[in-house]
C-alpha cells in the first residue's frame, strides 16, 4: 500500500526558474561561438566565484560553519594540480577531480581539530589552517618555493594543441563544474541531509533535540565543501597557468570576495550566491579603477546588508514576491487513492 502522499519540491516559479536556467545554460555552453577570448575568461571567472560562493554558503549559511579559511582548499587544489601534473605527469583535467579527492581526505583530520573550536573561534582557526598550508607550500622547492611556479608548456599543450581549443576546453570544464556544484547542492538539500541542514540552519538546538546528529551532518558538509572548493581551485590555477603561495592562499581573493558575494546576494539560500556574483561583477566592471577604495566600499556594503537586510538581495525579493528559482520547496500532496479512501 502506498503512503498516500508524496512530497513536491517544485512550484510554478521554480518551474519558470528551471526553464530560465536551461535556456541560460544552452546560451552559455555556446559562448565560444558568440564570445571573444575576454568574454570566455570573464565568464569562467564568474563560474568560479558562483561555485566558491555556493560552497561557502552551504558551509556557513546552512551548516553554521563560518569559515574564513576556505582559501586553504582553493590553494590546496591549485597546488595538487601543479604537483600531480609537474611531478607525477598526470593529465591536467584528471588532476582536477584528484585535487578534490585529496582535499576531502585532508579535510577530515582538519575538521577533527577545528570542530573543537566553537562558533567564533572556529572561524579564526580555519584561517590558521590556511596560513599553515601557505607556509608549507612555500617550503616545497620542487614547486618554486615562496616565489611560485608556472605550468610547463608541455603540460599545457597536452590538453589540446591549439591555444583556442585549450581555452574552449577549460571554459567548458569550468561551466560543467559550476553546474555540477550547483546541482549537487540542490540534490543534497532535497535529500534527508538537506532537511537536517535546513533544521540546523534555523535552530541548532531544536534540530539536535529532534534526533539530528548535528556534528556528523556538519562534518559531511565540511568535507564535501573542501572537495568542491579544491576542484574549483585546481581549475582556477589551471586557467592562470601560474601559482604562488600568496595568490593560492589569498584571503582577499578566495574568502573576502566570496563572503561579500554571499552576504550581499543572500546567505542561507541557494539563489543568493548567484545573484551576489552577478552584482559583484557588475560593480567590479564599473568600479575596478578605484583599487583599494573598491574593496573598502564592498566591505561597507556587506556590513550594511548584514545589519539592515540580513537575508540579502534575494531574501528581500523572496519576501516581497515569494519567488523560488530552484525546486527546493517541500509541499505535501495527497495522492488520488488516498483522497478517495
Amino acid at each position: 500500500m502506498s503512503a498516500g502522499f508524496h512530497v513536491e519540491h517544485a512550484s510554478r516559479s521554480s518551474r519558470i526558474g528551471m526553464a530560465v536556467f536551461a535556456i541560460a545554460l544552452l546560451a552559455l555552453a555556446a559562448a565560444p561561438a558568440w564570445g571573444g577570448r575576454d568574454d570566455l575568461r570573464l565568464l569562467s571567472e564568474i563560474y568560479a566565484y558562483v561555485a566558491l560562493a555556493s560552497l561557502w554558503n552551504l558551509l556557513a549559511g546552512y551548516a553554521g560553519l563560518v569559515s574564513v579559511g576556505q582559501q586553504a582548499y582553493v590553494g590546496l587544489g591549485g597546488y595538487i594540480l601543479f604537483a600531480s601534473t609537474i611531478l607525477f605527469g598526470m593529465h591536467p583535467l584528471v588532476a582536477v577531480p584528484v585535487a578534490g579527492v585529496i582535499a576531502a581526505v585532508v579535510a577530515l583530520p582538519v575538521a577533527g581539530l577545528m570542530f573543537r573550536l566553537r562558533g567564533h573561534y572556529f572561524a579564526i582557526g580555519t584561517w590558521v589552517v590556511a596560513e599553515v598550508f601557505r607556509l608549507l607550500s612555500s617550503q616545497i622547492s620542487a614547486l618554486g618555493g615562496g616565489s611560485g611556479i608556472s605550468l610547463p608548456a608541455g603540460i599545457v599543450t597536452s590538453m589540446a594543441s591549439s591555444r583556442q581549443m585549450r581555452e574552449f576546453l577549460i571554459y567548458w570544464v569550468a561551466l560543467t563544474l559550476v553546474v555540477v556544484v550547483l546541482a549537487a547542492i540542490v540534490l543534497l538539500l532535497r535529500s534527508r541531509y538537506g532537511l537536517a541542514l535546513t533544521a540546523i540552519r534555523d535552530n541548532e538546538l531544536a534540530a539536535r533535540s529532534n534526533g539530528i546528529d548535528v556534528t556528523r551532518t556538519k562534518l559531511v558538509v565540511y568535507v564535501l565543501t573542501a572537495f568542491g572548493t579544491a576542484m574549483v581551485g585546481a581549475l582556477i590555477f589551471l586557467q592562470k597557468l601560474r601559482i604562488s603561495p600568496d595568490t593560492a592562499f589569498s584571503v582577499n581573493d578566495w574568502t573576502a570576495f566570496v563572503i561579500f558575494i554571499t552576504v550581499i546576494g543572500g546567505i542561507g539560500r541557494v539563489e543568493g550566491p548567484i545573484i551576489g556574483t552577478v552584482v559583484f561583477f557588475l560593480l567590479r566592471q564599473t568600479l575596478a579603477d578605484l583599487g583599494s577604495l573598491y574593496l573598502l566600499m564592498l566591505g561597507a556594503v556587506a556590513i550594511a546588508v548584514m545589519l539592515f537586510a540580513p537575508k540579502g538581495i534575494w531574501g528581500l525579493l523572496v519576501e516581497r514576491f515569494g519567488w523560488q528559482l530552484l525546486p527546493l520547496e517541500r509541499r505535501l500532496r495527497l495522492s488520488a487513492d488516498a483522497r478517495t479512501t
Partner: protein
Amino acid sequence: MEWVNIIIQGVLIGGLYAMFAAGLALIFGVMRLVNIAHGDLIVLAAYIALMTTDTLGLNPLLAIVVVVPIMAAIGYGLQRGLLNRTLGDDVLPPLLVTFGLSVIIQNALLELFTADSRRLKAGAIEVASFQIGEGVWIGVLPLLQFVVAIAVIGGLQLLFYRTPLGRAFRATSDDQSVAQLMGLDNRHIFALAMALSLAVVAVAGVFLAVRTNFDPAIGPARLIFGFEAVIIGGLGSMWGTLAGGIILGVSQAIGAQINPGWQLLAGHLAFLLILAVRPEGLFPKVQG
C-alpha cells in the same frame, strides 16, 4: 648559551602576543564576541602613534598617552554605533561585520599611508641592552615591553575582580538578562569593554611599531597570534593569555633558529598541537 638567548627572546616577544591576546580575551569574556578586525585595529593604533610622533615630535613610548584614549574612544563608538547591533544568538552577524571592518580598515590605511613599510623610532632605547650572564644579553626595550605586558594583564585582572566595573563585566558575562534586571545597561557595559580592549590594543600597537616594520597588511597575522595565545592559554583566563603568548613566542623563536622559514610555522604547529592534546587550553576558566 645560544639557546638560552633564543628562549629569552621568545619569552619577551611573548609579552607582546599576550597583549594582542588580552584584548581579544576581554571582549570574548564579556560579550562572546570575536573581533576579526582586532589585528587591523592594532595596526591602526600603530599608524595613530606614527602620526602622533610625526606631528607632536613625541617619543613613541610617550605617544602611548595619546594613542590609548583615542583608541578607547574609537572602541566605545564602534561598539555603541555598530557592534551592539550584531550581538545575539547567531554567530554570523558579528563575524561578518568585524570581517568587513577588517577589510575596510586595511584598505583605508592603504589608501592613506600607501603600502610602504613604516617604523617608529624610539631613540637609544631601541638598541640598549645589558648582560645577565656569560653570553646572555637582554634588550631594554623587549624587557620593558614584557614588564608592561605583565602590568597590563595584572591591571585587567585587578579591574575584573576588585572594581565595580569589573563586577558589572562579570555579571553581564554570566547572564545578560539578569544583569540588565539589576539595572546594568548592557549596551554601555559592552561599549566600555570594547573601549578597554582597544586601550590594550593601543599599547600593543605602539610596542609593535617600535619593534618591527609595519604596513597596512600585517593586521590579520597579529589577530592570529593573539587568537593562538588565547586558545593555548585557555579561554577566559587573563594570566593564561600571558602563558599562551610566551609559549607561542618561544615556539617561533625555536622554529626560526632551526630554519628561518619555519618561524611562523612552528608557532602555528604549537597551537595545533595544544588544540589536539588539550583543546580547553592550559589554564581554562570559562566554557565558551
